[in-house]
């Protein structure tokens, strides 16, 4: 099976989020960058599991970004990706990003394209669906399990109020979330090997965007906590009932 895993670079989960330039830009000062957890823990590892099951399979990584993403790509290769492609474009427009991914995916003739369920920076959860439509391929979103047997893929997908078991055929695009795979950590051999694995850089075919970020805002800070004594639980219920009017 030929598998393409879309990966992206995001701020570490412990990052304090701040904005600069009149709140028009994300403040990157002191930010540690990581591989998006959904891409790393679920999409990539699932791809590796499938590869281990079926000899002759390959796992390619694909990202859209400038050279500063390379360390993240190397990490993906260290965990087990065979090769990587970087589309040399810095954009926050999902439509454009997905269009570029789809062109590479289509040309590469992949059986399966995996993405994380969302990135933890823009939380848009759209790349998989956009790529699928650009490729005119079926799409299963928010998968928490996936098995493949002689080209029939069985997937567990989250829905509100439960889960669906879906049967699909290849080629297919799937977005991955918790449950898909067990997180793996790169070992020394992987890290050393990653340095010599191929990383191909391609230029975008266009740069037209449909959206533009105008500005950012931080959530309003809490005004302070009202403490209630542990032996006066009735007071908490009264506050929720009469003051917050929620119960």
């Amino acid at each position, binding site marked *: 099976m030929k598998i393409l895993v879309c990966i992206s670079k995001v*701020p570490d*989960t412990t990052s304090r*989020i701040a*904005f600069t330039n009149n709140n028009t830009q994300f403040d990157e000062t002191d930010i540690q960058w990581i591989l998006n*957890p*959904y891409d790393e823990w679920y999409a990539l590892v699932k791809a590796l599991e499938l590869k281990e099951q079926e000899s002759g399979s390959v796992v390619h990584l694909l990202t859209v970004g400038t050279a500063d993403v390379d360390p993240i790509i190397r990490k993906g290769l260290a965990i087990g990706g065979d090769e990587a492609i970087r589309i040399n474009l810095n954009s926050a427009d999902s*439509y454009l990003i*997905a269009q570029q991914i789809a062109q590479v995916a289509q040309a590469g003739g992949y059986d399966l394209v995996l993405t994380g369920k969302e990135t933890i*920076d*823009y*939380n*848009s*959860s*759209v790349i998989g*669906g*956009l790529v*699928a*439509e*650009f490729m005119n*391929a*079926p799409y*299963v979103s928010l998968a*928490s399990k996936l098995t493949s047997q002689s080209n029939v893929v069985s997937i567990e*997908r*989250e*829905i*509100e*109020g*439960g889960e*669906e*078991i*879906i*049967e*699909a*055929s290849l080629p*297919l695009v799937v977005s991955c979330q*918790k449950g898909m795979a067990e997180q793996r950590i790169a070992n020394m051999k992987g890290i050393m090997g990653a340095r010599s694995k191929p990383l191909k850089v391609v230029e975008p075919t266009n740069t037209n965007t*449909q*959206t*533009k*970020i*105008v*500005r*950012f*805002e*931080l*959530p309003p800070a809490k005004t302070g*906590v*009202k*403490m*209630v004594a*542990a032996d006066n639980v009735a007071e*908490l*219920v009264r*506050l*929720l*009932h009469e003051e*917050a009017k*929620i*119960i």
Partner: protein
Amino acid sequence: MSVLVYIDHFDGHIKPSSFEALSYGSEVAKLLKTDAVGVLIGDVKDDVAGLGKYGVKKVYSVATDFTFDAQQYAQAIHEVATKAGADVLVFSHNPNGKALAPRLAVRLQAGIVTGVVELPKVDQGFVVKKTVFSGKGFAFVEIQSSKKVVSVNPNSFKPIVGSGTATIEKIDYKLNTPKTKVIKVNKAEGEVPLTEATLVVSAGRGLKGPENWGMIESLAHTIHAATACSRPVADSGWRPHHEHVGQTGVQIAPDLYIAIGISGAIQHLAGVNRSKVIVVINKDPEAPFFKAADYGIVGDAFEVVPKLDAEFKKIIK
């Protein structure tokens, strides 16, 4: 020109998140001085004409026996969008909306913004506010294309209920056979789905083990809340994965979030800090969660929670 809202359903019933999307779409239509219409694919037991009370004038209904498939459903919605002359498409940012909205964006060559929490500003272009950094921030995004696709975060936009009725127009369109097929649905019996819940009771590692969740479930049952948990709790298999909230789990914005024995790590807070009211119960007065809370009790969960449950029972039948 019109605003088209996708009406999602499960088990024969229209999803509450669709009521929010319908109201949102109707308000967008007012801003753009046009009408909002809905599209429904498949059959529901509910009163479809009654959806007029959320402000839609018409519901286009497409019959099909096929189970949900993003590709074929998207094609049907596209058909309706063309017929309705839709310029703005509205979805709920729920599992089916996440599968469909991007496909429609490509079909209509439309800019797409998901996870929207407020009505757009339309005085200068079309600017929507969305959550970013998993709840640690918001972005205002301008959609510059002539056609637009937005999806609304559940629990961010309260349904506005008026009195109208919608006309129903049956669309003579046959879906192609999908390439994916739902062969089984496992319903989470009797539970309130977490993303739809207005009240949530959540617990963390402070509870020591899965055997102690009885009091959490009882409290949730008393106030009709959904249950949630921190990541290590789900990772240890104490609770199912779909209850894991936070930056790498489900992000929620209920009216009330009660956090019991959860320290309040930054990754946890990211998923819940849009809750309207946060109550924290923790035995450690230094727990970081208190800084993000509205009400707090320093105490042992094993003593406080049963008492709280009993007090709630006095005011809730």
